[in-house]
């Protein structure tokens, strides 16, 4: 029997969505302060407008919808799914007012891309975008990546225990420690530690690269947000190729690896359990897929003669593969070159690692190493079972924090999500092909990049792209971030709601 939601349920959902609006208002206030300091008055007005609208929604929800009712599982799932839609719409307001976006759909695309840590961009004339608005773009990566939805609800709603269920709804797999509030605190502790260390290292490498003074610090903070949260926006239109610096790329590589690690793994390392690094199924899977596809890409690049020196081959090739596999999407070359200069094998390897993605419970998108590892082990178990006597009992296990048995429900869940990702990749590619402008390679590349929240582009994503395709990518980024289930539950909830009104 399905639940029949009514006005009381909508009230609860609306009230908690108000908390998200508050978090967004705070997120816009920070760059507004920077805009005032830098005397960027146009950006300041745009950011204050956005913050004001978000704050008004928050206050309206507090006033008219206030409730002491706790979130149920169903409420929480719908809140999470709606929060990404509402949040991206509100976050789009300052971007649209900045004058760098042709229409609101463009700004919404950028905001969704930022919050879901995708990194695809349709901004016009990025190289003249104000410092504060550019900082705001990168801040959306940090807010989305560090779980603005969960944190806002956990810290400001007083319903920690019931909100714990939202972790799964947001595709974050599981809580790291029993309390959600403590989990959120730990996530921010880790993020702060990396923020300080990463920003110092990036600033030093940027100063060495020739960007001195406060501009070096500004670039460093923006790059940190984009790297650690596996986002992919960059302060300059030529992405990481702008810096011409092995030092900058090396620091970013470390941050991308840290960003694609699950917070549970960070917690294990933080607690001194270094053995987890060798036993964890996701670490092993990622190491294998990264090594395998890197070799494939390097072979492809050698075969096509793209690079003439080993140094160039390794630096550009491996950075791009790591950027794609971690779900970051930083580029060290013009996107068109993937099509015109990289041959056919290397871009295929890039697409493959984008589709696979990083670790579950991290900010990375894609199918995730956990599901790849589980599906592979499940497949091997089936093969083993076929080769053994019928009476033999075959058990497959994996290590993730502790030794676990692969049960049929776990395997079904992993393969279901894997299948849904593949279908989403194909659906986006098909929509791209419908326009008849791009070939299948380009359409698949861009679709996978959007649905896996990566951000590398062969040039399809631009301010002049077809509106229908742009909307498709928005939906893909949203589905990819939520890992489908919360979105499906929201649709089901809506259908139940309409059904209950008949």
């Amino acid at each position, binding site marked *: 029997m399905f639940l029949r939601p009514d*006005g009381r349920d909508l*009230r609860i959902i609306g009230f908690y969505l108000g908390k998200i609006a508050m978090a967004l208002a705070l997120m816009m206030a920070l760059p507004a302060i920077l805009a005032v300091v830098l005397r960027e008055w146009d950006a300041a007005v745009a950011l204050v407008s956005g913050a*004001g609208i978000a704050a008004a929604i928050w206050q309206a929800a507090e006033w008219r919808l206030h409730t002491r009712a706790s979130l149920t599982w169903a409420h929480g799932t719908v809140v999470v799914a709606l929060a990404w839609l509402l949040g991206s719409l509100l976050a789009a*307001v300052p971007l649209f007012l900045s004058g760098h976006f042709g229409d609101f759909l463009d700004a919404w695309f950028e905001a969704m891309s930022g919050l879901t840590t995708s990194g695809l961009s349709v*901004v016009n004339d990025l*190289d*003249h975008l104000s410092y504060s608005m550019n900082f705001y773009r990168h801040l959306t990566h940090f807010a989305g990546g560090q779980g603005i939805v969960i944190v806002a609800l956990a810290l400001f709603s007083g319903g920690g225990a019931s909100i714990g269920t939202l972790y799964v709804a947001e595709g974050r797999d599981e809580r790291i420690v029993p309390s959600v509030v403590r989990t959120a605190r730990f996530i921010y502790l880790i993020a702060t530690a990396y923020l300080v260390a990463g920003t110092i290292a990036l600033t030093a490498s940027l100063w060495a690269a020739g960007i001195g003074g406060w501009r070096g610090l500004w670039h460093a903070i923006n790059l940190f947000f984009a790297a650690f949260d596996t986002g992919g926006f960059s302060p300059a*239109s030529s992405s990481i190729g702008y810096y011409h610096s092995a030092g900058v790329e090396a620091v970013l590589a470390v941050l991308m690896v840290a960003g694609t690690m699950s917070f549970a793994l960070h917690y294990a390392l933080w607690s001194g359990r270094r053995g987890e690094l060798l036993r964890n199924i996701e670490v092993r899977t990622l190491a294998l897929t990264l090594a395998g596809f890197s070799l494939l890409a390097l072979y492809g690049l050698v075969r096509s003669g793209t690079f003439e020196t080993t140094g160039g081959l390794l630096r550009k090739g491996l950075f791009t593969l790591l950027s794609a596999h971690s779900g970051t999407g930083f580029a060290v070359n013009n996107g068109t070159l993937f099509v015109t200069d990289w041959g056919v094998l290397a871009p295929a390897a890039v697409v493959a690692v984008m589709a696979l993605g990083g670790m579950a419970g991290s900010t990375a998108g894609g199918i995730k190493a956990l599901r790849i590892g589980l599906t592979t082990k499940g497949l091997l178990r089936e093969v083993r079972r076929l080769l053994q006597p019928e009476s033999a009992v075959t058990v497959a296990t994996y290590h993730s924090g502790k030794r676990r048995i692969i049960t049929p429900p776990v395997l079904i869940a992993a393969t279901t999500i894997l299948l849904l990702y593949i279908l989403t990749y194909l659906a986006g590619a098909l929509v791209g092909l419908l326009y008849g402008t791009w070939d299948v390679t380009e359409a698949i590349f861009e679709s996978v990049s959007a649905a896996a929240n990566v951000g590398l582009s062969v040039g399809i994503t631009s301010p002049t792209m077809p509106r229908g395709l742009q909307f498709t990518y928005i939906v893909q980024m949203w589905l990819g971030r939520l890992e489908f289930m919360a979105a499906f539950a929201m649709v089901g909830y809506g259908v139940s709601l309409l059904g209950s009104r008949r």
Partner: protein
Amino acid sequence: MARPTRPTASLLIAPIVFVVALVVGLQAMLALDERPADPDLQVAPDALPPLSSEVVRCERERPDTEPAQREAERLVTGARVSSATVVACPQVFDSRRITFVGEVVGDVLHRDDGAWVQVNDDAYALDVGPLPAHDDLQGTNSGLQVWLPDDLLDGIQPGRPGRRGDVVEVDGVLVRADPQDAGGMTLRADRLRVRAEAVDVEVPVDPAQVVLAAIACAVAVGIWVIHRREDA
């Protein structure tokens, strides 16, 4: 006990109406204040070498790439080319001498004996000037990475927020996979002429946005005050 259903309709419709009104309102607000590009920021086309802006795309390891490359060969005449033309068929331009015109943007990244600069040849650099000083949107930035030896760097002013940088005409050799940049594509310049000096661009504040910001903040504070009074 029957659950109340009366408020459902308003709770469903109100947020949808609000979002639609917000989007339409914002779109209308910006549309009412369309600002044209400043003609003074256009770099006089007559003063620049003629541009071969034709784009022929060659793709490595594809069966049809050789005819495309042959077609692209005719673009390589030592004349001015666009960045779009170069990245569409980089093999043809490799080690060839080209002329490139664009705006220096961002930072001058000094290294031994020279510096890296990004030179954009998009519409914001050459035709309409930087955003958001106008509403003539022309897409994303595009350009090339250029290596300038020390003797060409004198007084170069890069473009940034609120400033259109120096528009320069550079001659040099395009290196498709430059070993000095770990395989990046570089135009190694040996001649540079400033075609238009850097200029600060005024970015006006839209009065309608000021009003919007004031109203939004006033509504938020107003609701907060009413709510507090009701609670008291």
